[in-house]
């Protein structure tokens, strides 16, 4: 089959998957480009992991087609697909050493002993685990296991790497380090990463593009900035960032909390702002910023994020119950179509 420059690395066409009465994927079409860091983002049970498993071949779709590099693999066994997976629980073989784990893919493909050892050691170096080859997986920390799982997958040189919430079990600091590391690795290797996560921040910082999943469907596909600033549905607005949805005159729209100015009742706001009055219902001090929830007189409430440039925590917390005025530029609001809609790129 011809493989043009614009052949997507992964193409899903009309994928459906149900378990009895439970619909896991309710019809998904998706193109993931060659060399892209693509994230499947959504809450648990939204179908993102099932989609990844369909690409890997662990789940057979009830309907639809899976293509890898333009080749239809819908009926191909996982062992024959040119993808490798980093599992959420790492799935390291407990009876093998780290080195044997990393060599496994090469061994079953019949790569000679010397070559596979060389390549395995090289990859272990690359994931910054030199000298741990003779350990058993149980003797490693969580972060180290995670990197062994990564090494075991990339040593095979797959054109597409699938990652199923690989950082889910790590603590915050390690997770942030690994985010940077994974992004660098993807750039160096130049291969396609398909990354599953429920963490919107992770999705926004790492991805070239992302797809937001909800109830077995894709709500929106786009670059992080686009999805964040122009959420196409109420769900996306709420899941990627904070749901700030207002209804005014039959028009539903969302506005990001950091785009809102908040001033005391008598103070003026720059001209051209839309202005509403309200009362601070709740204050959460989060270090760098303070989050306020403001109840509007005209109905509804908005979350407002203010950087703590000059405000002390004392002052911030005293704002509770005070009357305020909110203002925002009309171009920072985005209209939302009422409820779910079929989405395409």
């Amino acid at each position, binding site marked *: 089959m011809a493989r043009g420059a614009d052949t997507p690395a992964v193409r899903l066409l009309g994928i459906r998957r149900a378990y009895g009465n439970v619909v896991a994927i309710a019809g998904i079409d998706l193109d993931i480009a060659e060399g892209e860091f693509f994230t499947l983002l959504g809450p648990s049970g939204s179908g993102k992991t099932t989609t990844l498993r369909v690409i890997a071949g662990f789940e057979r779709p009830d309907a639809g087609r899976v293509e890898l590099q333009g080749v239809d693999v819908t009926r191909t*066994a996982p062992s024959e697909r040119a993808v490798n997976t980093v599992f959420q629980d790492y799935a390291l*073989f407990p009876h093998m050493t780290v080195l044997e784990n990393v060599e496994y893919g090469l061994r079953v493909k019949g790569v000679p002993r010397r070559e596979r050892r060389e390549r395995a050691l090289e990859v272990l170096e690359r994931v910054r685990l030199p000298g741990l080859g003779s350990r058993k997986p149980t003797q490693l920390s969580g972060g180290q296991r995670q990197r062994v799982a990564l090494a075991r997958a990339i040593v095979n040189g797959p054109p597409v790497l699938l990652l199923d919430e690989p950082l889910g079990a790590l603590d915050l600091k390690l997770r942030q380090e690994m985010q940077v590391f994974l992004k660098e690795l993807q750039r160096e290797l130049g291969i396609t990463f398909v990354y599953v996560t429920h963490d919107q921040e992770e999705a926004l910082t790492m991805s070239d593009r992302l797809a937001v999943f909800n109830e077995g469907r894709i709500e929106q596909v786009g670059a992080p900035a686009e999805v964040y600033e122009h959420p196409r549905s109420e769900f996306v607005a709420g899941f990627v960032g904070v749901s700030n949805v207002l209804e005014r005159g039959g028009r539903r729209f969302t506005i990001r909390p950091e785009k809102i100015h908040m001033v005391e009742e008598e103070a003026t706001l720059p001209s051209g702002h839309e202005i509403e009055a309200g009362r601070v219902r709740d204050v959460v001090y989060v270090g760098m910023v303070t989050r306020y929830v403001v109840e509007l007189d005209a109905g509804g409430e908005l979350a407002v994020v203010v950087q703590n440039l000059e405000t002390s925590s004392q002052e911030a917390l005293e704002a509770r119950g005070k009357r305020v005025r909110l203002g925002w530029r009309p171009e920072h609001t985005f209209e939302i179509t009422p409820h779910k809609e079929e989405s395409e790129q």
Partner: protein
Amino acid sequence: MQPGRPLRAARLYLTGVFWRHRWGKGLVLLAPPLLAFALVYLASLAALFVSSFWTVNPFTTEIEHHWTLDNFRTIFESSAYRTIALRTIGIAAAVTVTDAILAFPLGYFMARLARPRTRAFLFVAVLLPLWSSYLIRVYIWRLILDQNGVLNWTLRQLGLGPLHLAYSNWAVWIVFSYVWLPFMVLPVYGALERIPESLLEASRDLGARGFETFRRIVLPLALPGVVAGSIFTFSLTLGDYVTPMLAGGSSSQFIGNVVYSSVGISNNVPFAAAFATIPLAVMAVYLLIARKLGAFEAM
């Protein structure tokens, strides 16, 4: 001082002792069973071992308490006893292998493929024979394997010649394999069930096909279960004398039958003791190997 105060102080003290010295708890828990174990079990084993070095005076039939290796010499030098010992160990090994081969696919199906209802049904099917008397199960097999039994009747209907299985080593092997099968299925099932599905997926994901995954992942991870099961099947066969007597007859004597007749008929307890130490020694060696293979982590 209030009444009950010393009691509380004592309680406080004791709690502290048990908290600081964790072995204290273990000691209290284990003392009664350990005592019974030491007295009844180890002492009788020691008595067995010691008496195997005594002899019986053939004229007075009194036990003579002076040390000799005569009993062991008799066992190793007499070809009849050697045959019996080798038959016992050989059939025990054959039964173990047979059960492992039968139990593995069954355990695999139950652990990884069967739906919960099917699995429950298979569990009952595997365990059901254990709820009936051992003796009855052996007698039923006699009815099946008899010259004019169910098996040969069926074969005759199919136009096939009769098999002469009754009262042979074959019969002993078949009956043992049947009666000890549950003891192999359960640990094998347990070991297979503990293998996370994601390991098999990872193997396939890395390019290994079905058989390769089985050989490199499933088999090594389930092996401790197989070894654990084999400890049961091997030792149970090694020590049995009912099945050889009922299904095998006089041509299929086991060590147990010799022990039985030495004690019961010729009243030669020292010789029986000597012969009984052989399965013990074999089992000890077997358990050492099993421990090396990690069997005790799967029990």
